[in-house]
């Protein structure tokens, strides 16, 4: 039975969610401060958007203000995550979704690139091993 055949309406999260709480503008100042610190000493930082009393309308407003940047990264790891640069370089909007597509957590990160994007050296080693294996396979094939 498909979900929409069940006659119980899943009411969109929060009927009052079309109102703005007024908490979002303060976040812009905080992000600016985070950027200043990042420029001064390279300190990266993040804001957990679910830890703050923000309505969906607030998030929408914030997203509009920050705008879209040049880079949009999609990570497929137990559900899709999007790590998108905003119009302010260095400010990233990170959304983690579960395999059902529901938002698990949402962050604003200030960094060159979000931590999660960087390849880990352990993984690079595994990748290199894999590549060397491929190359040796190739050379074996040539030998034949």
């Amino acid at each position, binding site marked *: 039975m498909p979900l929409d055949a069940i*006659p*119980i*309406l*899943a*009411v969109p*999260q*929060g*009927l*009052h969610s079309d109102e703005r709480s007024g908490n979002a503008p303060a976040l812009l100042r905080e992000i600016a401060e985070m950027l200043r610190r990042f420029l001064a000493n390279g300190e990266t*930082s*993040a*804001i*957990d958007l*679910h*830890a703050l009393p923000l309505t969906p309308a607030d998030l929408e407003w914030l997203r509009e203000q920050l705008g879209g940047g040049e880079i949009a990264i999609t*990570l497929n*790891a*137990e559900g899709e*995550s999007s790590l998108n640069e905003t119009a302010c370089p260095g400010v990233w909007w990170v959304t*983690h979704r*579960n*395999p*059902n597509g*529901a938002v*698990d*957590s949402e*962050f604003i*990160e200030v960094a060159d690139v979000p*931590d*999660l994007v960087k390849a*880990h050296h*352990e*993984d690079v080693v595994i990748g290199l091993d894999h590549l060397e294996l491929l190359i040796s396979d190739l050379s074996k094939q040539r030998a034949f």
Partner: protein
Amino acid sequence: MQGPLIEILARQGITRRTFMKYCATLASLMALPPSAGRAMAEAMAAAGVATKRPSVIWLPFQECTGCTESITRSHSPTLESLIFDVVSLDYQETLMAAAGHQAEEALHNAMKAGGYLLIVDGSIPLGLDGAYSCIAGRSNLELLKEAASGAAAIVAMGSCAAFGGLPHAKPNPTGAVSVSDVVKDKPIVNIPGCPPIPVVITGVLAHFLTFGSLPELDKHGRPKAFYGETIHDRCYRRPFYDQGKFAKTFDDEGARNGWCLFELGCKGPVTYNACATVKWNGGTSWPVESGHGCLGCSEPDFWDAGGFYKALSTPANPLKMASAAVAAGAVAGVAVSFANRGKKRAAASAHETTTLADLEK
């Protein structure tokens, strides 16, 4: 960040990034700062590297194994149960391969070392000297006292261990009690729920591994991060409650429109748990979303809370003693009336008539 845990996960098809993403979400759920996500990931990965992994003993008492099922068969079981790869789970009857004397020996070795984390699911029966539930011929009470004495902290998993749960329900034939009724001198964290939400279990263990301490608890020993607000306060149907729109039966107009289930006995207003935000089965749904009121399973004595389908505001059964009370009242009234009449008669018969002669005296 590296270690056997990452390798174990990689073998199960879980990438490093998936793990980090999971930890970030876990930290967010526990209302910890974003940096804690990374700290947790590193601590858990490092715990696998350490020569001695934190020892965990899991004792099942009077229980149904639903709590173990909840964590091991959750939506992404490998992630929720990754915690078992981080710790040295020295004794868990359902999960361990060993049996009989070997299992008991593992338990004793772990206990000898001390400083372990003790997880308990199930209540402890005190009736008949604890004979209702025994493992290897020893009562649960005896086992718990012994295991608790060397534990660094105790996690009471599920409503039975936390509050006595279903076995504790009236008339409680086995004399079941909670862990905190037995153990008084150790830090205890209660993770109630029937069963508890998997991520709550992982979250508490991750917190313990990362920071070496238990998370902040409420007055019932529950982690505030997950049990800080009522179901009702975070319920997506709350606006209907505020508008006074209630489903009256499970198949009426209101039920179809997804109105508030308060009048159908929802215990959301008095139940502290994270179902409304974390949901179940990987965020698919939760009881209220699927059209049934909250049973209040993470609260003490939820089983005896006046009926699952009776609204919280209506009395359970106030006229239970009515006829007896009326009869007793009537009997008392009649008895007092007779006593009064008797008194009156006595006064009348004691009354001396005044004669003319008396007045002339």
